[in-house]
């Protein structure tokens, strides 16, 4: 197998590739700024310079030339090479800063050059704490600067577009942002303008950087030149916890990082998932973090005799619901599921009503035709449409929903977390004759029309799985406490870096940020108390149960999903799987 020697250690490689990526894959460190594994290689930052050479091959003898010590004679390239653009070659010898003083010096020199025109404004820069330039300067940079002139001044705080703000002075001209709009989002909205140390990225005159993926440029900016208009000045990186999640604002289900501080989600950024979203995610998914904080249903609400909804206790909500259930026969119950609800919630919801004798389970797809693209946005606006199809819910179109209510005249209507009034012909008046129960996360037109509202957890408060438009099952981890969970006790919750290091910034003190809600499956378990048919302790148990009943889910576990960033399911027949 071809071999390469890095800092005098031998490595084998199978695939052709570049030295820098190979080193990263092998956990070796080398500083770099402009390189990005999913973009073209401009080799312009010059930070990943290494000393490289090839053994001298004696063609006549057919062997490598050896020196007096029996070591291979190495012919080094006359200049230092950028590892990002250097092809792996059999027998190649590479020296990094670990084994070569010149390389070490060159890395420091390069950082000195980068820093001469870079403002020293880390204390007020959003990027501080997660800034490659800051980190690499600490690690590889010179101790001081010998630059004693005025730095080049460029425009600051330029609103490039609705979501991205540019500080051109911080820019180090790595061109990652330009390459992103050229190669990934293909909107070609950015360019570098001017030349030399006066250049910086910009949109065309009068053009707005409204690329639906614009915030990815903020992620990949190795400095604080591009910052998020929404997140700007909201939180310091070291104050936040970082929990893996998935984007539930769209059918694609991008892998995400959920950033929390004091039990509020501060921002959402993409998490690398080769099978789904690579390093990227749409802006819309990031900005959906608000639904986890704002307008939340906290505590059950009830409508006493055609009056305004008022808060009530869980006990009262439960008792009222039992009474309503006792009043009706199964055919008089209309059960509407939701493509926005998780696999586990949807399963529990359906299983419960099926046990009561309800036969039909409907859901209203949340699809906006033409809103998707070839990249990471699907027409489907919901995270689990394929999931609930697989669980046997039947699709009902928006205009049909009203007829269903009109002809069936249900006395009791259950709606799971979906603002169906907003996207169907169904109006509050159609539900007047029925007692309507809404299990939801946020207040909306449907919750306001309901007689009883049960607050349930969002994707950042429970562990649950969702199946994306491509049939991949992925799961979430609680990133945010509810009134009933504690991140130090709940084993599903991940502890952030600050937890481990105990920084004083990591105080989750504001009780108002803890929502009074429980997972839908847990509420159903409560409803069913007294019987031991549907008593689940955790969503894991539910998933295990689904695995036993539906072949496509067989053997699927959270551990598996965690390990592989989700699992591709074989969902050939999305149709009715009414085995529940």
């Amino acid at each position: 197998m071809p071999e390469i020697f890095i800092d005098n250690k031998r490595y084998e490689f199978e695939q052709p590739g570049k030295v820098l990526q190979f080193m990263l894959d092998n956990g070796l460190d080398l500083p770099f700024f402009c390189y990005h594994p999913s973009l073209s290689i401009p080799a312009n930052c010059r930070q990943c310079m290494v000393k490289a050479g090839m053994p001298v091959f004696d063609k006549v003898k057919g062997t490598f030339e050896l020196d007096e010590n029996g070591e291979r004679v190495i012919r080094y390239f006359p200049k230092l090479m950028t590892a990002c653009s250097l092809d792996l070659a059999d027998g190649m010898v590479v020296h990094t800063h670990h084994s070569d003083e010149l390389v070490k010096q060159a890395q420091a020199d390069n950082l000195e050059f980068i820093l001469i025109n870079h403002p020293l404004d880390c204390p007020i820069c959003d990027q501080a704490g997660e800034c490659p330039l800051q980190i690499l300067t600490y690690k590889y940079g010179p101790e001081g600067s010998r630059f004693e002139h005025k730095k080049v001044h460029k425009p600051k705080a330029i609103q490039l577009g609705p979501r991205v703000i540019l500080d051109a002075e911080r820019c180090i001209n790595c061109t990652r942002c330009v390459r992103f709009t050229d190669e990934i989002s293909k909107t070609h909205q950015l360019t570098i303008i001017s030349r030399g140390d006066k250049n910086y990225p910009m949109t065309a005159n009068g053009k707005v950087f409204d690329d639906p993926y614009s915030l990815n440029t903020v992620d990949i900016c190795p400095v604080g030149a591009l910052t998020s208009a929404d997140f700007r000045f909201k939180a310091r990186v070291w104050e936040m916890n970082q929990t893996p999640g998935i984007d539930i604002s769209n059918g694609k289900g991008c892998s995400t990082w959920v950033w929390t501080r004091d039990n509020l989600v501060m921002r959402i950024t993409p998490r690398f998932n080769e099978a789904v979203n690579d390093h990227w995610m749409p802006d819309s998914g990031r900005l959906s973090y608000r639904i986890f904080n704002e307008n939340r249903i906290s505590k059950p609400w009830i409508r006493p005799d055609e009056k305004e909804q008022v808060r009530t206790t869980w006990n009262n909500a439960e008792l009222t619901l039992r009474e309503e259930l006792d009043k009706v026969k199964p055919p008089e119950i209309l059960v509407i599921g939701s493509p926005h609800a998780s696999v586990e919630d949807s399963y529990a919801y359906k299983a419960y009503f099926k046990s009561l004798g309800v036969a039909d389970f409907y859901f209203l797809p949340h699809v906006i035709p033409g809103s998707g693209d070839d990249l990471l946005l699907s027409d489907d606006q919901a995270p689990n449409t394929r999931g609930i199809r697989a669980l046997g819910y039947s699709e009902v179109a928006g205009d049909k929903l009203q007829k269903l209510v009109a002809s069936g005249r249900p006395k009791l209507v259950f709606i799971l977390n979906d603002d169906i009034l907003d996207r169907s012909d169904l109006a509050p008046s159609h539900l007047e004759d029925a007692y309507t129960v809404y299990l939801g996360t946020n207040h909306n037109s449907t919750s306001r029309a309901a007689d009883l509202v049960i607050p349930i957890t969002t994707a950042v408060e429970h562990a649950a799985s969702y199946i994306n438009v491509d049939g991949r099952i992925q799961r979430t981890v609680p990133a945010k406490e509810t009134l009933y969970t504690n991140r130090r006790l709940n084993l599903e919750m991940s502890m952030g870096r600050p937890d481990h290091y105990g920084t004083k910034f990591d105080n989750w003190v504001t009780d108002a940020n803890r929502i009074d809600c429980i997972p839908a499956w847990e509420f159903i378990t409560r409803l069913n108390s007294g019987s031991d048919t549907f008593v689940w302790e955790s969503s894991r148990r539910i998933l295990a149960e689904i695995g036993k009943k539906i072949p496509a889910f067989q053997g699927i576990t959270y551990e598996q999903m965690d390990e592989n960033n989700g699992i591709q399911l074989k969902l050939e027949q999305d149709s009715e799987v009414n085995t529940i």
Partner: protein
Amino acid sequence: MSETKSFNAKDLSEIEKLTAKYPEKQAAVLPVLWYAQDKFGHVDPSVQKLVAQTMDLPEALIYGVVTFYTQFYEKPMGKHVLDVCTCLSCQICGGYDILHYLEEKLGIKAGETTPDGKFSIQSVECLGACAYAPMLQVTNDKYVNHLTREKVDQLIEDLKAGKQPGFESNKMPQHENGSD
């Protein structure tokens, strides 16, 4: 403020001809920008937009190109742009003297345009007329070599009178001596 600019049928057929020289249309960006600058006198944002639309290329790309090349005027310039070379040979042969004389004469600094919009002065890099220093170029076209104050005076007067400088051929001394 900015009126809508457009290419007429003749322009479009010229642009098509320029594009036909290359396997990919983007290659014609520089020629088309030159063409547009000849027509409009500059390639300000409105012209850049027109070029982008005409060539069906991203506006940002055109903007990036325009700002990379110093001969493209990003904003309207004086009717006559006097590019005075101050680089190397011209520097040591009095290029700055000529530049300063021009600045004084026209009452503007390098990089500025006279209030009447007639003249702009720029201090530019080597124009490749090193033996004929000091020299300047008039609006990206003719070179005026061997400048003296008198020659500058004459040039300004000619330009004011609407007379463009002619092409100055700098013969090789070897041609003068050993002509067949």
